[in-house]
């Protein structure tokens, strides 16, 4: 088991983080929040130039071919920045395409790498597709487990009015007869688990960012003549938030390895990761809001964008209870339910 990525991967993630600090700062996020598509103009292109959209795409398609363990720090960074781009959707769907191989992979993966195609896949456990509105190609599973590739024009996407403009679920109406390809023989569950862990990593990044914001605010905001961070009630809430985040992180790291190696415990570990990261990020979100008080409750303060992304990513790809039940089944009954 590897719990940490290679030094090279860490170094790459640091450069991505620099890019996001520059091009996806709070100002860019606020502008995205008020825009129609909720995205940061030009960011996807810059991510592609840096190699992020091809991060986990095979080298034969022009990507970097990183495994999930090495890709994790980039995903954490994207969560930390509350980046409103369909990165997990695209990379996970690319996994599916690549595993299926054939013409769809050959024609679409190079476009993913160069940043000219966005992908989506689904539906999740309760029937929605994350980021469908942005996708040029959608990989959709039917009830029998068949997976079909459909181009944007062949499906009818209805984005759901969501609290988070950056990551919106949608319903998708489609027919297998419109598919450009049928992706046979791929393990859809393995790719679902891949996406679950990727989202868990983003939740860890969100937790880190909200903890930083709350700590920063607690150090500067004064009430009763002192910085509020001097009050034990504030300190202890923040300490608990730190502990929750610290203990979620290695669980997510381990799950990345289980997914990368396709271990028998893969689904259990992925669900454990999503559960732990969602619970941790949820706790940090509550604490961060409470520490910020009325200021944090405004749309004008940046915190709300992180809160809402946390709620959204916690709910999508199976919510914490769904994942906990999957772990419970695995641990107690020795069975893991399959998902589309």
């Amino acid at each position: 088991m590897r719990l940490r990525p290679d030094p090279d991967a860490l170094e790459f993630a640091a450069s991505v983080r620099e890019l996001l600090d520059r091009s996806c700062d709070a100002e860019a996020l606020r502008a995205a929040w008020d825009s129609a598509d909720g995205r940061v103009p030009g960011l996807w292109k810059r991510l592609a130039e840096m190699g992020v959209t091809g991060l986990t795409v095979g080298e034969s398609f022009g990507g970097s071919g990183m495994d999930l363990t090495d890709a994790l720090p980039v995903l954490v960074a994207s969560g930390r920045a509350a980046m409103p781009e369909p990165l997990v959707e695209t990379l996970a769907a690319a996994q599916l395409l690549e595993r299926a191989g054939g013409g769809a992979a050959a024609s679409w993966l190079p476009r993913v790498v160069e940043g000219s195609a966005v992908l989506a896949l689904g539906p999740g456990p309760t029937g929605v597709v994350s980021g469908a509105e942005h996708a040029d190609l959608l990989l959709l599973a039917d009830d029998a487990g068949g997976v079909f590739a459909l181009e944007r024009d062949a499906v009818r996407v209805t984005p759901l009015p969501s609290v988070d403009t950056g990551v919106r679920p949608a319903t998708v109406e489609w027919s297998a007869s419109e598919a450009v390809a049928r992706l046979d023989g791929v393990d859809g569950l393995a790719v679902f688990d891949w996406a679950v862990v990727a989202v868990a990593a983003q939740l860890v990044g969100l937790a880190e960012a909200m903890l930083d914001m709350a700590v920063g605010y607690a150090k500067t905001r004064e009430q009763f003549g002192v910085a509020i961070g001097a009050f034990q009630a504030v300190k202890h809430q923040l300490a608990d938030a730190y502990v929750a985040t610290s203990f979620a992180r290695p669980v997510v790291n381990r799950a990345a390895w289980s997914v990368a190696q396709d271990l028998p415990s893969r689904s259990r570990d992925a669900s454990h990761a999503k559960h732990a990261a969602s619970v941790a990020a949820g706790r940090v979100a509550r604490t961060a809001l409470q520490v910020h008080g009325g200021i944090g409750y405004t749309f004008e303060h940046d915190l709300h964008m992180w809160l809402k992304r946390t709620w959204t990513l916690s709910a999508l790809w199976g919510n914490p209870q769904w994942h906990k039940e999957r772990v419970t089944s695995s641990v107690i009954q020795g069975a893991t339910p399959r998902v589309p």
Partner: protein
Amino acid sequence: MSAIYGRDMAIVRERSGVDLSVEPARAAWRAEVRSWLAANVPSAPLPSLDTADGFAAHREWERRLAEAGLAVVTWPSEYGGRGVDLIDWLIFEEEYWASGAPARVSQNGIFLLAPTMFEFGTEAQKQRFLPPMARADEVWAQGWSEPGAGSDLAALRSRADRVDGGWRVNGQKTWSSRAAFADWLFGLFRTDPESSRHRGLTYLLMPLSAEGVTVRPIRQLDGEPGFAEVFFDDVFVPDEHVLGGVGDGWKVAMSTTTSERGLTLRSPGRFMAAADRLLALRAESGSTSYDADVAQAWMDADAYRLYVLDTALQALYGKPIGAESSANKLFWSEMDVRIHETALGLLGERATVDSSWLDGYEFSLAGPIYAGTNEVQRNVIAERVLGLPRA
């Protein structure tokens, strides 16, 4: 109980510990409220009261309530009320929220300002302010917090300087709920420039249309302007708009904070209705995954109902309501978050799609912050109820 509900102690003869809702008069009251609501509650939800349209629609709803004599049921009839006691108020609230009736845009006025006015206001003030408040002809915003005075309210610095016939107000309030669309504002201002903390404050009333008042709406978590910053630039407030004594503002404001307001801020009926809706959501979902949480929500709402009922019965017997209001606030605010978290869980991947549950969740998150943060409430219980030393 004080006289603010217009009842003489002598007529409150009910036996302590008896829920009178099964007595004929109570039952009749419940039936009257229920039937009026059934006939009058709008079939579709009104737009958010934090939008211009929604505010107007809610104001209109308040007028209909007032015409039916149901806007301010605990007030004496001379000011537009029905003179019912706390028990009947609890019954009213149960029916109100169970019926799916709109949120109360007049809440600041009728639940926060009015009790204070009954206790400290002059007869002229009561006659001037209460009837239009009951009819929502004048909707009130509250002006407590300032940028530097949130949980530490006593740090407030907005000042009112003595001038001929009144006060000249300068400074800034923030997180002023309803201020974006309201007509009047009540709040605390520092009238003694030499004073600090809780001393030298005065409770003032002023129209938001007054010269020198600037309202800058603030979008709250859900993006709507539920509150505002209010700036005061040489705003003149005449003496007749001082509530209570000059320099007594803290006492005036707090007397109701720790009395009935602790009970009336969030009535049990709201949470009973929410728990019932949660049960319905569970039934629709067909999921058993949240049964423990749904049952806990139901138990919590029930416990809250019993606690408030017990406290109200004690109040009817003249026992002052003190730190119960802090325990109350901790309980309902945490319960409210849990109820909504459970609902969002049941909604699964659609949790963050617009819904009344999502709106309710966002609103519930404000609960542990406003009206005295839960940290402050825990201090209050520890120090005033349990007698632990101040730090």
